């Protein structure tokens, strides 16, 4: 039992020295919240926060992978918007179309994402510019497809967002499982290790003969895939896809990655940190709501958290 605990502790902290900081902050925040308000620490409120963090968690999962390779994906917002309008527009209320369309959206997301990766490789342009351009292009296509909410989904589709099995929100549990699978993949599968290698020292990775191109295509395709999952969740939550559904996620998806201890310079960090980063931000916003602090100040606090987080982690890398 202790061996297991030790191993899981090792697993959690390896490559992620900042992880304990995030978990510590999360615990402190929870205790502080519980002290301030009884309803904050109630199971139903916590489950709600858990449930609502799903969208941000899914985008940030893909974002973490691109950041690990020292890249970034700024097309996620537009991608989510496009996929969500295509999803509800194509299903258009027909229950029989739900499954094939969802699968199609997942494939499309991965395809657009891999186009990002291929462009980065072919044109040798910085991912920031490539995904920025792709984001503009996708937003334009979205607005060509529709200028407002498109189509509809069957009523039961909200199961992906609001469904509960044994009292637990389905989407959020699915998200945790996905995070753990990706964490295991990054740690135990050679290809997962390559992702760190490419981000840590690109030239070194190339000299070692690691498949740098395949790694890049994979991470951007995976980010696109995660956008598709987010789009499905958001359509379930709102009942319809809209042209600006994903807009705020572009920059919002980067905050949890950074707060979770993944460095923008690549090669360091991991998805578990991101997951806790998502919970930290979701819980913080929830607590600020309980404290009746307006959303305007929530922005200020979010910005300060980014500054604090990046300042702390920079020191960590230097110490290594």
């Amino acid at each position, binding site marked *: 039992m202790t061996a297991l605990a030790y191993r899981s502790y090792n697993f959690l902290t390896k490559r992620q020295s900042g992880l304990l900081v995030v978990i510590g902050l999360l615990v402190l925040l929870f205790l502080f919240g519980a002290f301030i308000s009884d309803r904050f620490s109630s199971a139903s409120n916590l489950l709600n926060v858990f449930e609502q963090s799903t969208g941000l968690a899914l985008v940030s999962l893909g974002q973490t992978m691109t950041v690990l390779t020292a890249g970034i994906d700024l097309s996620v917002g537009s991608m989510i918007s496009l996929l969500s309008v295509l999803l509800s527009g194509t299903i258009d209320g027909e229950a029989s179309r739900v499954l094939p369309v969802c699968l199609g959206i997942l494939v499309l997301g991965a395809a657009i994402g891999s186009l990002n990766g291929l462009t980065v490789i072919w*044109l040798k342009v910085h991912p920031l*510019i490539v995904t920025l*351009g792709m984001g*503009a292009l996708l937003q334009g296509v979205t607005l060509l497809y529709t200028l407002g909410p498109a189509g509809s989904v069957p009523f039961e589709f909200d199961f992906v967002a609001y469904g509960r099995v044994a009292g637990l929100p389905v989407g959020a549990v699915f998200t945790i499982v996905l995070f753990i699978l990706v964490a295991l993949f990054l740690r135990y599968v050679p290809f997962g290790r390559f992702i760190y290698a490419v981000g840590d020292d690109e030239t070194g990775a190339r000299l070692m003969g690691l498949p740098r191109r395949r790694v890049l295509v994979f991470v951007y395709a995976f980010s696109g895939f995660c956008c598709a999952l987010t789009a499905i969740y958001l359509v379930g939550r709102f009942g319809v896809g809209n042209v600006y559904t994903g807009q705020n996620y572009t920059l919002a998806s980067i905050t949890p990655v950074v707060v979770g201890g993944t460095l923008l310079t690549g090669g360091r960090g991991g998805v578990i940190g991101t997951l806790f980063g998502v919970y930290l931000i979701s819980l913080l916003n929830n607590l600020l709501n309980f404290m009746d602090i307006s959303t*305007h100040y929530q922005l200020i606090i*979010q*910005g300060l958290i980014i*500054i604090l987080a*990046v*300042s702390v982690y920079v020191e960590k890398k230097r110490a290594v």
Partner: protein
Amino acid sequence: MQQAVNADMSTVNEKSRVLKQIGARYGIHLALVALILVSGIVSPAFLSGNNISNMLLQAAPLGIVVIGQAFVILVRGLDLSVASIMATAAVVATAFNGQPGDVVPIILIALAIGLGTGLVNGLLVTKRDVSPFLATLATMIVLQGFRFAYTQGAPSGNVPHFFRIIGAETFYGLPYNVVILAVLAAVFSIVLHKSAFGRQVYITGGNPRVARLVGMNADRVTMICYVISGGLAAIAGLVLSGFVGIVDNWVGRGFELDSIVAAVMGGIALSGGRGSILGGLVGAAILIVVFNAVLLFGMPVQFQIIIKGIVIVIAAAFYVKRGA
């Protein structure tokens, strides 16, 4: 005989080399001229005095931001906070409800906000080693929070008439804001290309190690670049508030990315140390011309963003090839 052929070959090579150099150095300028000519031929309305005056009016605020962005990118940075500074300056412009006597305090407060934000950006980047993307992202969000808290989400009030004049009116077809842009561009071009500080900017961006080894205070140079960018963004915000006339919380939205795009298109390398202010302004002009042409050609407005997205990537690729 053989020699003659060789000589012939070498002049051909020489010619193609010169052509290549011209293409590399002036490619973006030629692209702008070609774009203007094609647009003029396809749609004669494009070259009407009215339309040109209109485009200049739109180009000026973007151009002012691009000058600052150029400084930051030259030292290997990036400034995402410019749009937030612009919007905050615009909110300040309406804060006193449009009295003519308030013009000077408005300018001072807006400048203070811009310069202060730039200073914070610079400090985070140099003293805390925060990546420019995150540092300016964070100040962008914080500033946005202060702005929302101040306006409670719904800004109101009028812009003083003075800003309406400099932002939206023309002097026999020449917009006043273009005059402001021209003056700023001239001043900062001289600073960048003729002063010792300008050389330091290029060295800091081109090779920070060398900068340190020759005993330069690279941190100070970097910091000043962010401060310049913040100050210029504040000026651009005031000019834009005069152009729009009314103010909401999002005046200047999209300028952070458009200004980076214009700079990159104009040949200012994101890897630092290469590029000029004139190049950045040409990049800004191309963006504005493309936006305008899309509408004059009768294409749906959505094509503005689609074409913008494609142009960004192609332009960036052009410079990568050149650098390699």
